[in-house]
């Protein structure tokens, strides 16, 4: 059986997989990191988004064997070791950017990648377009967009603390 060695949230793992094992299966079933969700399993919904070598990818459409040597970050790896939330997680909480929460891990991971790639700042339509690969079936997009708009100011150092929803 093929072996894969990869780094997940800073820890190195060597895992036995089948050729057909998906990255999301490796994460959820072998490493028990169940924060990464499987929604559609057809690379449309984005619930399974993780970062692979700094790029957001849909882990349901990446073979585990293809992640040999890769650096993976999942939703479990975003917060600081002391539990301090990442500004994007904090913003999702502050702006109530979730309803059932199923799409949330993928939304947060996509949002972090989107904001990191756009240091110039994103307008509301740009945020909406940037989320094209993530579906929320509660249709809670409005607050998700607000959360991302607020988080980008903290991530790019334009504000020290998150703008509150009341502001």
């Amino acid at each position, binding site marked *: 059986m093929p072996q894969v060695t990869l780094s997940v949230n800073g820890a190195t793992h060597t895992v036995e997989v089948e050729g057909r094992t998906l990255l999301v299966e490796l994460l959820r079933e072998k490493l028990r990191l169940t924060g990464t969700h499987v929604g559609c399993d057809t690379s449309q919904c984005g619930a399974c988004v993780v970062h692979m070598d700094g790029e957001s990818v849909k882990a349901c459409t*990446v073979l585990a064997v293809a992640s040999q040597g890769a650096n993976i970050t999942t939703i479990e790896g975003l917060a600081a070791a002391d539990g301090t939330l990442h500004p994007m997680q904090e913003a999702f909480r502050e702006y109530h950017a979730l309803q059932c929460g199923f799409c949330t891990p993928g939304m947060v991971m996509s949002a972090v990648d989107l904001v990191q790639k756009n240091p110039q700042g994103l307008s509301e339509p740009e945020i909406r377009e940037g989320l094209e690969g993530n579906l929320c079936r509660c249709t809670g997009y409005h607050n998700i967009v607000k959360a991302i708009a607020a988080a980008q100011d903290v991530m790019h150092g334009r504000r020290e603390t998150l703008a509150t929803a009341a502001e």
Partner: protein
Amino acid sequence: MYDFAYHKPSSVADAVKLLAADPDAKAVSGGHTLIPALKHRLNKPTSLVDLSGIAEMKGIRREGNAIVIGALTKHEAVATSAEVKAAIPVLAFVAKHIGDTQVRNRGTLGGSVANNDPAADYPAAVLGLGATVHTSKRKVAADEFFLGMFTTALEADEILTAISFPIPEKAGYAKMRNPASRYVMAGAFVSKGPMGVRVAINGAGPCVFRQAAMEAALSANWSADAVAAIMQDADGLNSDIHGSAEYRAHLVTVMAKRAVLAAG
């Protein structure tokens, strides 16, 4: 998904050997077409040959009056390439509008073109610019490359390694996306340059094709008005739950007009 053996060669020569050794082997890079097909068991390869470790198939470079893009180049890399944006901005536009961010972070130029999905974007750019497809064996003109639905001139043990896009004087692309799937219902890629005036239509038929009447009209008069009255024959176009052949034929003219306007 059925299981398969997995190989990751580091040279084109080794990849060709692996493909030649197993008639049921499949080449894969980003996997954003193949993996969904494997999940549906539409395909049952005994081995996968992962091309993504082959350095010679990577990178974007200018060679004379052409931009040469390695087959493994991801859509997002083409979309954001300063080299591509400066020489053929419409090619960056095409790449930027494929799928979504996560698809663009994995999907590759070579994979899209070798797969030749009727609703894919890149084949329109390849045919519409009169590009040259480089393979492990030869160089193939775009006009000879796309043979039919999901069918190209590539042989079973032949690998698409790069594509050379001649830099046009002007070029534009417009597409109508299905509102749910976002796949192309009909698209038009128009260009004027070293390869003459070319109009490539994707999404509408089973395979990307050139629209000769529009090419003639634009050769005489490069303007949206020149193509406005040219109706695409609906015969042979795709007809499905997303749209009839007649609707797609209508879209061809509309997209061609928009593409000419975008080209300027």
